[in-house]
């Protein structure tokens, strides 16, 4: 037995409750206060997070910390508070309305398993706004918005928490004598805990549906929604799991930019805009990175944009590279100076660009991709004879090598150095082998 430090956690100066006569909310708040007393918690280590609706009036009745946010989102704030400061005990007070609009948060919080306790004040309709139907309104019920009877299947809140990984899930009523003990059990559970507490809304639901305590218990039976603890399983809470992730991650190096020194030089005088147009899987973007990095190693300024469909390993893949003796300001390419077509998908994708090219511009094309609808000078990509068998698998790297030789924007050695500096050793080895064909 823990030594109580407070007789009550209710801020008595704010009593009486402003709930309607006969409303069950006050009973549940009293049970929560008794549970906190049982646990001997300091008010400063407890945060009560209230949702919107009549239950949202509750925070002022507690001497603990409180958070009163937006409708349906209480569980998300509670998880955030608990994640940041695990020393705090975090309790959510939410209605059936909040569990409707925030249903997705409810089931995901059960999955996330932050160590919070959710008390659902489930009185089968919206009290604060005039008795409209909620997600738990029983079938055929009369409410302000179902005047001829509700036709929606009622949601099983506890059941939802249960099937989505909720570690501690119980169903209770506001009239249960042992409710404080049940709340204490829920709070002691290390992980997500929820009690679906059934209540009476005397202002609306009770009077419109002749639904008293007896009828509520009968309804519970008829729905096979038994009360008591429905699930109690242990799995690591978010805090525990994430601590493991932090430990593993702390051994990894923090992110750092790719720093390239200027070891080569270039004497180009104006920006050159290059478009590599191929297909997914050809490593087009990687080749674009090589050209941009080689230019950077040569004291030039670059930008590299990539364009590809949202799916991977299918469709076009385009890299747009600007190489310039001055910092690149405008990074777009409306008219390329050079285009390399290495797959039909890429050729089709940049048809609009190649059409705008002029006679002084050059299009290099792989086998079968010539005859471009463009006034630009059109030349086949003529890879070294020895590299022919690489074309199928490594056309992008070959094209990077070929363009470097043809365009003479920076030394070929800069491209080889780029391979060494930016690619993983295994891939670098392959690509250096491919570039060796040009020597």
């Amino acid at each position, binding site marked *: 037995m823990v030594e109580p430090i407070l007789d009550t956690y209710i801020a008595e100066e704010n009593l009486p409750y402003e709930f309607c006569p006969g409303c069950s909310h006050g009973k549940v708040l009293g049970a929560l206060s008794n549970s906190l007393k049982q646990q001997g918690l300091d008010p400063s280590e407890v945060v009560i997070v209230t949702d919107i609706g009549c239950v949202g009036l509750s925070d002022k009745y507690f001497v603990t910390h409180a958070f009163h946010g937006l409708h349906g989102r209480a569980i998300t704030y509670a998880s955030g508070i608990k994640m940041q400061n695990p020393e705090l005990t975090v309790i959510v007070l939410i209605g059936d309305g909040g569990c409707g609009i925030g249903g997705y948060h409810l089931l995901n919080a059960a999955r996330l398993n932050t160590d919070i306790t959710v008390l659902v004040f489930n009185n089968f309709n919206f009290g604060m706004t005039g008795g409209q139907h909620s997600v738990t309104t029983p079938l055929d019920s009369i409410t302000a918005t179902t005047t001829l009877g509700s036709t929606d299947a009622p949601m099983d809140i506890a059941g939802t928490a249960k099937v989505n990984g909720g570690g501690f899930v119980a169903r209770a009523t506001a009239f249960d004598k042992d409710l404080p003990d049940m709340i204490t059990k829920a709070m002691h559970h290390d992980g997500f805990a929820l009690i679906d507490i059934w209540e009476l809304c005397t202002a609306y639901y009770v009077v419109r549906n002749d639904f008293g305590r007896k009828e509520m218990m009968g309804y519970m039976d008829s729905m096979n929604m038994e009360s008591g603890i429905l699930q109690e399983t242990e799995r690591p809470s978010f805090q525990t799991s994430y601590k493991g992730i932090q430990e593993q991650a702390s051994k990894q190096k923090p*992110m750092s930019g790719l720093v390239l020194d200027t070891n080569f030089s270039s004497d180009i005088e104006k920006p050159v805009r290059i478009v590599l147009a191929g297909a997914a899987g050809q490593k087009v973007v990687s080749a674009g990175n090589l050209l941009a990095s080689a230019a950077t190693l040569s004291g030039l300024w670059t930008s590299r944009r990539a364009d590809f469909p949202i799916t991977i390993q299918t469709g076009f893949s385009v890299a747009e590279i600007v190489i310039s003796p001055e910092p690149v300001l405008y990074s777009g390419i*409306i008219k390329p100076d050079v285009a390399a077509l290495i797959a039909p998908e890429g050729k089709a994708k940049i048809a609009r660009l190649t059409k705008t090219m002029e006679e002084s511009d050059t299009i290099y094309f792989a086998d079968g991709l010539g005859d471009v609808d463009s006034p630009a000078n059109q030349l086949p990509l003529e890879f070294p004879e020895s590299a022919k068998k690489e074309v199928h698998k490594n056309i992008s790297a070959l094209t990077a090598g070929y363009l470097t030789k043809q365009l003479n924007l920076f030394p070929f050695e800069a491209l080889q150095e780029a391979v060494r500096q930016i690619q993983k050793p295994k891939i670098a080895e392959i690509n250096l082998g491919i570039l060796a064909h040009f020597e």
Partner: protein
Amino acid sequence: MIDGAAAIARGALDAGCNFYAGYPITPASEILTHMLRELPKVGGIGLQGEDEISSLGHCIGAATAGATVFTATSGPGLSLYSENIGLAIMMEVPLVIAISQRLGPSTGAATASAQGDIQFMRWCTSGGYPVIVLSPTNIPESYHLTNRAFKLAKRFRSPVFIATDKETVMTTESVAESEMLNAPNWPAILDEPVDKPLDPYQKNGTIHHYTGSSHTEEGHITKDPEIIAEFNERLKNKIGDQVDEIALVKTDLQEGADTLIISYGVSARSMETAVNQLRDQGEKVSALTVYSLWPVPEMKILGCLKGIKRVIIPEMNHGQYRHEIERLANENVDLIGVNRVDTFLITPEEIIEAYYG
């Protein structure tokens, strides 16, 4: 070689961010992946929420427990952030949000750059209370303005946006290392909050009530019209009265110029190229880059409008910031928009064409 996403993530981490929650969306997902990978390395927390609403909810909750929080999304995600941004304003929670703009409306062209959410950021939640919006034009500024956003969020206990776009976030560029390492010569943001600092929930700390309802200084809900009015005036004035401190622009004025070009974000880069080319051709032209889009740095803009007969405003929307200039400029000033909403960046040539009219 770096892209804007990495620069923004690095800026947040270096500013002391220790909590991030977000939901994947092009073109902001790279910021999410950087933050979720990096935060646990330094003892912070990074998670992907089930949606944008919960992500921002987690951030706000964590902030009341003392976290330095950050999130990023794009226009469609900002729609879902809306209600919680109102809550952050009401609870006075410091919050940094990067918006990587893409072409809308709705799903729009998800992989195309745009600047169509400039007004949306300003007016994104009910009540119309002010927020701060900073817009970088390049990668080093993405880093430094992110850092600055955290200082502003703390000082004003307010949401602060970084208005960026697909082009800046997803394009890899070469950047001088010194520009990343050395902070630009911008006026400093003071450390101490303009009002009271946020006192987080903590064991053995003072009892706190944070609420989205109109409340007294102690956080208790009130319906007293005088207290509500006083609180709401303070929310408006704490930012509205400090426009000069928040204001951040880059001026490039040329004596004798009667044309001023005003731009921001990625479009300001095309403006710079256009201005260089026009001056090479012997034209006299001034340029103003606005970094602090909101609150509108009115005094700075008015200062640049002196002697100006014509203003050209390139932006990748239908003229959203032009409206702000319109209310400041004298009626004899010609306002010309250069606008694009067709997935392409505004070209320097278009700005030059507008200049020659």
